[in-house]
């Protein structure tokens, strides 16, 4: 079993949200806090939220750190650092507070809004602005950060090291001023809120975003050509890859649209170079015809789809797992292909690499369903394991006299002659064809090639990496992709209360490993399928595949609000009934439902 996603242990963690108007430096402060926690040996996660403005506008950084892996945000925040109160109501849903929370704010920014007073959080006032204005070019985010560090129990030296690292590009003067501001905030009120013992310096820690992790997985998988069109929230994959591909002897071509990018990578892959594109929902929609071409011409390609709220333009900057249906069913004709989803930021390296290598080996289309919450979040993680597996494309280097590109073979994979190889000349085609590649509308050829394209996937042994299965007992949560982090946290809490629960996190969604899934579900009396979309897409897919008993229940919540561990625990406690009407149960729009009989 691939151990790329780590199980959590104690569950001690600290959650901080930093909010402010445009230019107030909330996100920079968040990064400094995350990396300072990393210096102290914590693992962590930072997500961001921003208003719709291209530049400026309010923004929020949400940071959570723990001695254990952090793969989701918690139910509520221990600390809110409000640099100012501008448009704070836009974040109220995303930053749940309680009477256990602390709000750090500046009396100069005005009254704490009633919206935030109502939850009973403690308020600690620090004169950010007064301290900052006492320094030349002093920034109040750094004062606030100093005060926040005390509350979080992080040492000043770790904060200082992180300030130097994050701000090093801004010049010596900026760093010096920031350090002084940090110190003023730190020394103003030295009462820590919660102290989680610092694990101390750890080796082999990485700081990486999910989009970078997908890019790295692509390179590890052997990708050396990328064509793509910019789109939120996938562009960072492309921006990260472009200069690095060059250094590795490959290239990235910015295409005129997604119709071009998919066809460009098909052309490059026909030339023998492992190729990939990255996009989001609207781009994937445009690429679908091209996916069919790659599949029928058996030209390997990988598409990373960083999902956002849909349909149509939807919510470009926020996350949702709602492209499962198009990924599974979007192609016309009978078009078996691969659909995978990374289970965490760390796992995005492995899953993307595996997806590329599977596409190459099976000469088909691989779709990787990441999403905004993985892609644009920064994580402190244990360095991912190197992938030992090396799957490659079967290449025909010395074709005989009667080379048949689409020869039916025992494993239904036929060696591909690459342009430049004498004797291997053939024309790849989106038209149905015979074994030589010659277009054919004969029933026998169609049947033979349909069977070939299906069987090569069916016969392949995907091993144990189809899912990560953990835990025992009689209740089970089935989930996929980025929802895995929050499901694991819910399961851990249940186990801490001596409850038992199994988690099945699906990494390979198509072809579904039905036998293994049924085995993993054996003996489960209660099954909950958890996902972040409105239509319960995984739930219905698993039912359609006959993988679930009728008693299984769904918890589906659309974006943009993240699923919270507490919501999952509540859903497990609800009675499981057949034919339950859909129930809208909270402001996040989550719905539970059973099978309609």
């Amino acid at each position, binding site marked *: 079993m691939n151990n790329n996603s780590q199980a959590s242990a104690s569950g001690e963690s600290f959650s901080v949200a930093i909010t402010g108007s445009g230019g107030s430096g909330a996100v920079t402060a968040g990064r400094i806090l995350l*990396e300072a926690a990393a*210096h102290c040996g914590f693992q962590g996660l930072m997500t961001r939220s921003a208003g719709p403005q291209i530049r400026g506008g309010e923004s929020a950084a949400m940071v959570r750190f723990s001695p254990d892996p952090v793969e989701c945000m918690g139910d509520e925040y221990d600390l809110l650092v409000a640099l100012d109160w501008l448009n704070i109501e836009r974040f109220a849903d995303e930053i749940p507070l309680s009477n256990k929370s602390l709000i750090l704010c500046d009396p100069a920014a005005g009254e704490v809004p009633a919206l935030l007073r109502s939850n009973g959080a403690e308020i600690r006032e620090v004169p950010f602005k007064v301290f900052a204005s006492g320094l030349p070019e002093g920034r109040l985010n750094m004062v606030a950060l100093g005060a926040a560090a005390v509350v979080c129990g992080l040492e000043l030296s770790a904060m200082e090291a992180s300030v130097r690292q994050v701000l090093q590009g801004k010049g010596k003067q900026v760093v010096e001023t920031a350090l002084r501001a940090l110190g003023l905030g730190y020394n103003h009120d030295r009462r820590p809120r919660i102290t989680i013992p610092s694990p101390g310096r750890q080796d*082999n*820690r*990485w*700081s*990486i975003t999910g989009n*970078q992790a997908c890019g*790295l997985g692509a*390179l590890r998988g052997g990708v*050396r*050509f990328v*064509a793509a069109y910019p789109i939120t929230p996938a562009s960072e994959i492309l921006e990260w890859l472009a200069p690095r*591909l*060059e*250094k*590795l*002897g*490959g*290239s990235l*071509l910015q*295409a*005129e*649209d997604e*119709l*071009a*990018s*998919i*066809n*460009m*990578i*098909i*052309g*490059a*892959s*026909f*030339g*023998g170079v492992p*190729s990939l594109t990255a996009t989001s929902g609207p781009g994937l929609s445009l690429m679908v*015809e*091209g996916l*069919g*071409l790659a599949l029928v*011409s058996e030209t390997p390609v990988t598409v990373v789809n960083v999902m956002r709220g849909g349909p149509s333009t939807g919510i470009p900057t926020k996350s949702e797992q709602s492209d499962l249906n198009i990924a599974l069913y979007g192609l016309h004709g009978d078009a078996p292909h691969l659909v995978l989803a990374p289970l965490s930021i760390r796992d995005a390296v492995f899953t993307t690499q595996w997806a590329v290598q599977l596409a190459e080996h099976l000469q088909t289309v691989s779709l990787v369903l990441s999403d905004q919450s993985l892609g644009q979040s920064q994580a*402190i993680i244990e360095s991912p394991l190197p992938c030992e597996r090396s799957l490659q494309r079967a290449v025909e280097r010395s074709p005989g006299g009667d080379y048949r590109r689409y020869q039916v073979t025992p494993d239904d994979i036929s060696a591909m002659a690459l*342009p*430049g*190889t*004498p*004797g*291997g*000349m*053939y*024309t*790849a*085609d*989106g*038209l149905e064809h015979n074994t030589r590649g*010659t*277009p054919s509308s004969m029933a026998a050829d169609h049947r033979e090639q349909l069977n070939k394209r299906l069987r090569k996937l069916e016969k392949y042994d995907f091993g144990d990496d189809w899912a990560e299965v953990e835990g025992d007992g009689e209740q089970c949560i089935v989930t996929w992709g980025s929802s895995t982090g929050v499901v694991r946290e819910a399961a851990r809490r249940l186990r801490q209360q001596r409850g038992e629960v199994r988690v099945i996190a699906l990494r390979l969604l198509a072809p579904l490993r039905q036998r293994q899934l049924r085995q993993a579900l054996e003996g489960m009396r209660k099954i909950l399928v958890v996902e972040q979309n409105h239509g319960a897409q995984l739930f219905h897919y698993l039912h359609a595949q006959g993988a679930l008993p009728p008693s299984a229940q769904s918890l589906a919540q659309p974006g943009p609000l993240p699923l919270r561990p507490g919501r999952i625990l509540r859903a497990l406690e609800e009675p499981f009934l057949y034919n339950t009407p859909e129930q809208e149960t909270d402001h996040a729009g989550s719905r539970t439902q059973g099978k309609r009989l």
Partner: protein
Amino acid sequence: MPVPARKAKDYKSDIKPVWCPGCGHFAVLAALTKAMAHLGLVKENVAVVSGIGCSSRLPAYIDSYGFHGIHGRALAAASGLKAARPDLTVIVAGGDGDGFSIGGNHFLHACRRNMDMTYIVMDNEVYGMTKGQASPTTRPTWCNSKMTPHGTGIPSFNPAAIALAAGAGFIARGYSGEPSELTRLLVEAMQHPGFSFVQVLSGCVTFRPDQRGWKELVHPFINDLPTEDRVKAAQIIQADDGKATGVIYATEFPVWQPENRTETELSELEEEFYL
């Protein structure tokens, strides 16, 4: 070492074309194989890429590597192939609907990008494979399609003008009824470094029998051509009746090249993530 002389038939595959008897595309296929023989191209180092349409069936009829993709995307597939495999000779073939309608955007950007490839558009001013609808190059008053019984009513697309405006460095027009001139144009196009565009008037005997009359209408350009002057080329193209043949414009622009250099190991790149 002298390369053995190659003949046009060496470049023909054994697959029988689907085209109607009398179709202009037979002559384009013959001219292309003659041009390939003239240049002594090594067959396995050539890739012919196309989209969908009658003329897009051409790759299978050439004995080289071929890619018969989807409607309108020939230039995109060819651009990816050329970017990944600059060592190959890439030829793109298609029709007026494939290239100027559904694939119009790729045409613009292929002209701009200036990759070293040759794009041959067999223009018969009609969609033949779908049985006779108006294409972008069809004149607005042509009423013989059931789908546009009053004609399209919109001015026809001027491929040479668009190619020039989009930045193509080599623009020519040939005629399937003048095969030796067409062969010469294709040779020059393939020799041109960068993107070369050849519009070939290639009549459809089935849905545009009126195009048999092209024989009388086609004539060489009277101007002193080709020119390297973009303004002069624009004037000639705008004044042109669409039936003049020859190389109109030829000039060398920087050719798109991937900037790849193999200088780093992947493990070195991974260092950036360590704290």
